[in-house]
């Protein structure tokens, strides 16, 4: 059994599971929550099977190729660090699912919540399990997106929406920076595989691109982990439901940045820039977060800033770049998870029961909700770093590391600041305890608080047990911390986690912290007044102002450029193209002409003159729309003639038949459009447009001339050489269409089919809108022909129908070897049918041939597709053609080729699309009151007048 493949399954399980809640919510909220837990439990169990291997120091991995050309593969690996995080994500995830079941009220769409939660869980798991940095980036962005959904879960709250937007903007921008950094790393190493990159630490640190990569990746990590000065989004994200805050903003997502720094530690850490950037940022964040936390009255805001502070602590530890610091960081990740998630849940319970999170309105809850109080007090003590809880041990380890860190030759600054941070940490933790649970019971709570049902406090209670257990028996966490620290450093670490380290400087720092912390709490009211008077930059105001500027700029820019004047856009486009082309001409080099100029016979001059004259007439007479259509058809004819002369018979056939269909279509459309274009442009504008047009035309002519007088190597020789051998046809153009480039053709018939269906759909929509009324009220011009279906036309088209169809079939059949093929045949047959429509009216003709044009397009595409798929049965790639020869005695050799079936598909699709387009136009006509004629022609001489008909009979009788 390949152990690694389990990892891919673990990573994908939450995504698959995300479908569950949506389906199960109909079965009730308990069922929904239970089924949401299933994928998480399964993933946790699967992860459990890998624990022994990881604990032995092995790295479990698996690779699924995805886009090998880009170096992107779905590779996953699991080492100690990955196990630590994956365990946290799934374990806490499970507790959150339980907690959220009881936390969310009946009005909240629970299915949605769980779906977002599982999406987030999957994205987060993906980050910690990815062995490919491109894959990691994808999951990284997914966490930003899914957290956006979760923060904004309460869509009706403006704070929720704004907080979600802010979080997405900040973390998304950081993600962009990180993409840059990761790509640089990948370029330095020459591989996007994390394992390869981690092995190349020396190479990366020596590279001149180290600094840019470091800074970009750190921006990504700092924004995600709310490090100063990007910390401001986290408190605003607290508008999310509390389970989200507990999960994303204490346990998992905000630690993604920490995870990334730990992951990249072997290749980025240990240098001076790393130390000064990471450790300093961490230190500032730690102190700042702790200070602000003390002055927050909202429980969740207090916890949010405390989280910012603890994330700073972790960042600082990683920044130190020492083995011991990494051990402390890994251990503190576990500890912070246990107490902070429990504290958030406690805050949620208080909010849920007392209907307020404002510390000023709380107090005395210990007597009213004792269980909650026990949980809250124990975990808050741990947060403060009180012996004998787990928070104490990792904080001691942090202070120990800080105590002998020298910053710019100054041995005091780091320990002093770390102690200061610890002081405030103690103060806000105590404030949480004494101002919420302590003090006398009040009688003005918004709601009567009491302990919640078991389901709500089960999860934080379990975490509290862990807090106490790890504190009392830290060796329990030792294997996991060892595995994680080994994975981070790539070295052998031997942490000895114990509660009592003896009387060390760190212990003294702790003692100071507690003393000062208690003092701070006692004077909090006075300090708070001073804090409120102090001018402080308000992050949200600054952020909103920046966003507003950006929006205003974009709006102004869009309005000035995108002002609805289409002709101006087009003019800009054309002029820009000309300028770029001219620039290329003057800066590039061009070889001397190599081809001889071909002679021009007199007939060609005639054709050229007709074409130029017709173009001039189209342009100069364009206001008379009908006349310009007549002139444009001359151009089409001349071009067809040109194709004949210049050895492109297939093109000539196609051009002339397309020309016919196009003119008919335009004529039909013109019937409903104004017949004249008013003169609107000023002479100046016309002159300007003429200058642009002539410049554009001249440039294109020069370009064409440059092409035409120079030789070039192309792949066409291959086609000429292999057309008969490989494709079995002598018409190389047709063989290219149905064989060499068959896939292109396949795409093109689909496009044409879509165009046909689009037109049909457009018409359908149109005839339901206000246009329908306008059409019905339409007054037709009085000079309509009274002979709409003339006798001569009807008779002539009837006689021509079989001939035209025969020509179409002939052209189709010979296509492989002689000019012709499915495209041309489809057009010819559609012209044959169109002639009937023109002669006797569309509806009359339609009644006599029941062809469903929609399905004709469909069948065309299906037949062409099946022909291509047929090649798979023979073990060949899509659209490989086969051919052979049959001999019927009286006739000559007869060729069969699978390409013929493909061409049949082309034929059907073209015919169906063309006819559907014209059918749609005729529907408008009928809507506009066009009557359906019952007789094929308006005046049938064999029927009227009655008398003369009798006379005729008599004469014939004689």
């Amino acid at each position, binding site marked *: 059994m390949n152990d690694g493949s389990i990892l891919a399954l673990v990573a994908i399980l939450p995504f698959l599971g995300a479908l569950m809640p949506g389906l199960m919510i109909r079965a009730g909220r308990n069922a929904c929550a239970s089924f949401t837990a299933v994928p998480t439990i399964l993933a946790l169990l699967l992860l459990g099977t890998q624990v022994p291997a990881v604990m032995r120091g092995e790295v479990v991995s698996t690779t699924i190729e995805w886009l090998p050309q880009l170096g992107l593969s779905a590779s996953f690996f699991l080492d100690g660090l990955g196990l630590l995080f994956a365990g946290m994500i799934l374990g806490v995830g499970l507790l959150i699912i339980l907690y959220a079941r009881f936390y969310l009220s009946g009005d909240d769409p629970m299915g949605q919540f769980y779906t977002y939660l599982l999406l987030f869980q999957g994205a987060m798991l993906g980050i910690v399990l990815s062995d490919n940095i491109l894959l990691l980036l994808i999951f990284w962005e997914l966490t930003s997106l899914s957290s956006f959904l979760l923060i904004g879960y309460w869509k009706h709250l403006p704070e929720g929406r704004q907080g979600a937007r802010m979080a997405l903007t900040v973390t998304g921008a950081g993600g962009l920076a990180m993409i840059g950094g990761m790509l640089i790393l990948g370029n330095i190493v020459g591989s996007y595989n994390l394992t390869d990159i981690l092995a190349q630490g020396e190479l990366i640190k020596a590279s001149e691109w180290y600094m840019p990569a470091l800074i970009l990746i750190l921006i990504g990590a700092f924004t995600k982990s709310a490090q100063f000065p990007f910390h401001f989004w986290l408190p605003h994200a607290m508008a999310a439901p509390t389970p989200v805050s507990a999960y994303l903003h204490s346990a998992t997502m905000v630690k993604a940045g920490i995870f990334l720094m730990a992951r990249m530690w072997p290749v980025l850490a240990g240098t001076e820039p790393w130390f000064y950037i990471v450790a300093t940022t961490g230190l500032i964040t730690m102190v700042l977060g702790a200070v602000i936390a003390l002055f927050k009255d909202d429980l969740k805001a207090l916890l949010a800033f405390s989280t910012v502070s603890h994330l700073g602590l972790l960042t600082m530890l990683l920044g130190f770049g020492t083995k011991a610091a990494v051990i402390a960081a890994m251990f503190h990740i576990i500890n912070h998870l246990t107490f902070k998630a429990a504290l958030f849940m406690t805050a949620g319970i208080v909010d849920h029961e007392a209907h307020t999170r404002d510390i000023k309105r709380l107090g005395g809850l210990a007597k009213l909700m004792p269980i909650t109080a026990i949980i809250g007090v124990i975990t808050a003590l741990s947060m403060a770093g009180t012996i004998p809880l787990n928070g104490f041990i990792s904080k001691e380890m942090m202070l120990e590391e800080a105590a002998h860190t020298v910053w710019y030759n100054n041995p005091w600054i780091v320990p002093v600041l770390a102690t200061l941070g610890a002081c405030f940490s103690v103060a806000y933790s105590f404030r949480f305890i004494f101002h919420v649970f302590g003090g006398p019971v009040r009688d003005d709570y918004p709601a009567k608080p009491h302990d919640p049902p078991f389901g709500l406090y089960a999860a934080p209670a379990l975490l509290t047990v862990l807090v106490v257990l790890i504190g009392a028996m830290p060796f329990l966490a030792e294997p996991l911390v060892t595995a994680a620290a080994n994975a981070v450093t790539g070295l052998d670490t031997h942490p000895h986690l114990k509660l009592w380290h003896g009387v060390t400087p760190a212990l003294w720092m702790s003692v100071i912290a507690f003393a000062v912390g208690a003092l701070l709490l006692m004077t909090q009211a006075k300090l708070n007044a001073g804090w409120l008077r102090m001018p402080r930059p308000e992050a949200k105001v600054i952020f909103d102002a920046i966003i507003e500027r950006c929006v205003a700029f974009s709006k102004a820019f869009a309005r000035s450029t995108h002002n609805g004047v289409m002709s101006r856009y087009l003019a800009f486009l054309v002029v820009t193209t000309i300028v770029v082309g001219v620039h290329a001409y003057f800066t590039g080099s061009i070889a001397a002409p190599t081809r001889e100029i071909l002679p021009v016979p007199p007939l060609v001059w005639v054709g050229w003159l007709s074409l130029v004259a017709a173009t001039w007439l189209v342009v100069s007479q364009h206001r008379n729309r009908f006349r310009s259509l007549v002139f444009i058809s001359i151009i089409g004819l001349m071009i067809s003639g*040109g194709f004949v002369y210049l050895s492109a018979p297939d093109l000539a056939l196609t051009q002339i038949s397309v020309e016919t269909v196009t003119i008919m279509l335009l004529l039909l459309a013109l019937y409903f459009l104004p017949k004249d274009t008013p003169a609107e442009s000023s002479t100046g504008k016309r002159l300007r447009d003429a200058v642009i047009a002539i410049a554009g035309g001249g440039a294109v*002519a020069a370009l064409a001339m440059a092409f035409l007088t120079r030789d070039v190597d192309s792949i066409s020789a291959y086609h000429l050489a292999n057309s008969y051998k490989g494709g079995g046809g002598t018409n190389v153009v047709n063989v290219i269409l149905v064989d060499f*480039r068959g896939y292109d053709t396949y795409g093109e018939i689909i496009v044409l089919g879509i165009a046909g269906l689009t037109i049909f759909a457009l018409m359908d929509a149109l005839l339901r809108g206000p246009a329908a009324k306008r059409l019905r009220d339409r007054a037709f011009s009085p000079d309509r022909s009274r002979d709409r279906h003339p006798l001569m036309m009807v008779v002539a088209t009837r006689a021509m129908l079989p001939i035209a169809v025969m020509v179409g079939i002939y052209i189709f059949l010979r296509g492989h070897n002689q000019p012709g093929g499915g495209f041309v045949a489809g057009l010819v047959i559609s012209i044959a049918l169109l002639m009937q429509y023109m002669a006797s009216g569309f509806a009359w003709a339609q009644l006599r041939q029941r062809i469903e044009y929609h399905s004709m397009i469909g069948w065309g595409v299906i037949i062409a597709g099946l022909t291509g798929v047929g090649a798979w049965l023979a073990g060949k790639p899509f659209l490989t053609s086969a051919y052979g020869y049959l001999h019927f005695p009286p006739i000559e050799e007869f060729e069969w080729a699978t390409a013929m079936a493909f061409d049949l598909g082309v034929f059907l699709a073209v015919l169906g699309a063309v006819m559907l387009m014209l059918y749609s136009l005729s529907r408008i006509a009928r809507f506009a009151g066009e009557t359906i004629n019952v007789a094929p022609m308006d005046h049938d001489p064999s029927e009227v007048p009655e008398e003369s008909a009798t006379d005729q009979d008599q004469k014939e009788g004689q």
Partner: protein
Amino acid sequence: MEMIVASAIGVLTAGGIYLILRLRAFPVILGMALLSYAVNVFLFSTGRLAINAPPILNKYADVSYSDPLPQALVLTAIVISFGMTAVLVMIALGAYLEADSDEINLADPEDDAHNNEGQGA
């Protein structure tokens, strides 16, 4: 001969550009049609010009052939440009029937936003 083809492409392009800069839908459609001709002939001409050398293999004699590849590409391009013209015509027609005007420029983007809201309601 090369000059003839190049100048024809140029003339068609110039006519097409002039027409697409007009203010009504129909001339713009005509302009697009002219541009399609120009583009198709231009693409065709990248295979260079040859007379009496169609790319139909001759079993009996060793003769030269014109370049088949641009021809194959242009063949589908001609058909596709028909499809494009048809869609354009239909959109122009729809716009005209809905708004009773076939101007292509929006009068004022601000007004337009209001109009859209009105139609949506």
